């Protein structure tokens, strides 16, 4: 958040005495670009609401409808009671999976980030390099066949365990928390705690954790959204009667291809949790993105 406002302020301050402020003032062209971008960004989401609140006859009208209708409640009712989608199960599963993975990844990454950033140990540098290298490997594609067969052998196919466990592996999280800890926790602070006789775990709890909380937040939001959107692996390893929300939409899409209002209502419902997260934490999401980008 601070990263977000700080550059703006320096710019404003510098502008006044310098007199070259015109370089940074938005021209009408700038405003036009931004306005068009926001309209394009918002239109498909708006259109989702339009179709989800109409009937199928209206949805296939020519010209197409551009204002919402009054059938949203009814259509969502149809999604929730659809026998092929198992939509409520999908929503619940997605929530459980995303929450479990998010909490675990944040904890695992904070531990590892602390060790890499502030504890010196043999092989630490190489181990960190290994994390970076594995981030380049498309594990999703590279590992799907053996992972699937592993899940078959464990008899986990169809169970959300099979989705949760592989996604606990998150190299980006370790990398992000290492960077964040390095920046947020001065080495002297750790040393001082050590001299006072604090154990490693205590230092983690009392010194590291309070300082890296914003980084954990960014990682948490990121991980949640990523897992909520995950499509390919759940499609492989889950059955349609116990889906995630994305797999449930896929079932609707595959079986009721022309029932647009049904599919759109399901889709709209599936992004609501993300919209809530976005409205609540939008500022942090942008701050985290920009901070991460400059460091990478």
């Amino acid at each position: 958040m601070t990263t977000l406002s700080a550059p703006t302020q320096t710019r404003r301050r510098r502008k006044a005495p310098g007199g070259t402020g015109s370089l940074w003032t938005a021209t009408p062209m700038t405003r036009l670009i931004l306005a068009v971008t926001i309209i394009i960004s918002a239109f498909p989401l708006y259109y989702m609401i339009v179709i989800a609140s109409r009937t199928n006859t209206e949805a296939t009208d020519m010209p197409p409808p551009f204002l919402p209708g009054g059938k949203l409640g009814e259509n969502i009712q149809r999604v929730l009671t659809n026998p092929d989608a198992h939509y409520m199960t999908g929503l619940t599963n997605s929530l459980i999976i995303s929450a479990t993975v998010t909490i675990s990844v944040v904890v695992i990454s904070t531990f590892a980030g602390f060790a890499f950033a502030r504890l010196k140990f043999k092989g630490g540098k190489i181990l960190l390099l290994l994390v970076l290298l594995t981030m380049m490997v498309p594990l999703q594609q590279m590992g799907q066949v053996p992972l699937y067969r592993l899940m078959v052998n464990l008899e986990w196919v169809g169970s959300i365990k099979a989705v949760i466990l592989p996604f606990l592996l998150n190299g980006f999280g370790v990398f992000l928390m290492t960077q964040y800890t390095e920046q947020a926790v001065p080495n002297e602070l750790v040393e001082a705690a050590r001299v006072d006789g604090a154990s490693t775990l205590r230092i983690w709890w009392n010194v590291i954790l309070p300082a890296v909380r914003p980084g954990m937040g960014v990682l948490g939001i990121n991980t949640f959204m990523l897992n909520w959107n995950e499509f390919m692996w759940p499609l492989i390893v889950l059955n349609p009667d116990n889906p995630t929300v994305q797999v449930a939409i896929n079932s609707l899409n595959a079986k009721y291809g022309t029932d647009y209002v049904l599919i759109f209502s399901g889709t709209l419902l599936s992004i609501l949790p993300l919209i809530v997260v976005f409205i609540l934490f939008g500022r942090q999401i942008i701050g985290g993105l920009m901070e991460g980008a400059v460091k990478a």
Partner: protein
Amino acid sequence: MSLHVDAGHPTRAPMPPSRRHVRPRPGRSFMTWLDLKAAPYLLVSPYYLLFLVFGLFPLAFTLYYSFFDYDLTGTVEWTGLGNFTALLDDAAFWRAVVNTLAMFVIATVPQILLALLLANALNKRFKLQLFVRLGVLLPLVTSVVAVAVVFTQLYGRDWGVVNWVLGWFGADPIDWKAERLPSWLAIATMIDWRWTGYNAIIFLAGMQTIPKDLYEAASIDGASRRRQFWQITVPMLRPTMIFVVLNSTIGGLTLFSEPTTFYNGNVHGGTNSQFQTVSMFIFEQGFREFDYGYASAAAWLLFLLILIGSAINFLLIRRIGGNK
């Protein structure tokens, strides 16, 4: 390092008399060892355990499987490099490679240019800054499947908004799914809609680290804004550009969800696989044909493709930045 020594020694140093008889001394030194020497390894171990089971093990087995021939009856036979040579001879595989590369180029080139333009606009002063940035990032929070569902409708042949708008200009309705180029274009717009704003925000972060004095000096020298953009902003953005392009390369070459949803959840990618990507090909071979060996070999070729693609893009960007 000095830290460990300081904290580690007191246990071995002579203790005050009162504590010399305390029994748990060996236990204490074990605890100290645990705390100082073992703790870092314990802290990083969850990640590496997960990596062994869900990273290294699958990778190794993908390589192992790729040397075997699986068929539907369950017979498994060693074929050596047979899967790889068969893939290189397989028109369906090459079609998937061409589709993937084409969609990657059609999507990424405009996307990077638009993101630069947008980031430049975002870097100016205007009101409601946070609101505008959130608006730009809005597509990112929509799930990929949701994006694909909406765009598939927008690109519908009979009732789609895109064809309706094209109709104003007298164009005949286009069957976006039927042919290669239209389907590639449709899928590329889905990707760009979702990622352009994200990349613009990343570029914006990079732009804000460029010293403002450079621009001020340049405008005193009479350089136009456009010139400043190409001669200061773009070259100074090189590190960010590498990050963005490598990210897009990995994402673009592993494309799966958009084209799959575009064909109603079917990984065949259209009647003639006109928009089947390599990821979808791997999925189809592995989980529709159950030819694990063939799918695994294709996965390794995809990895090779990503390495080559990343290397080319990396060199290209270094070059572009270096010239200016």
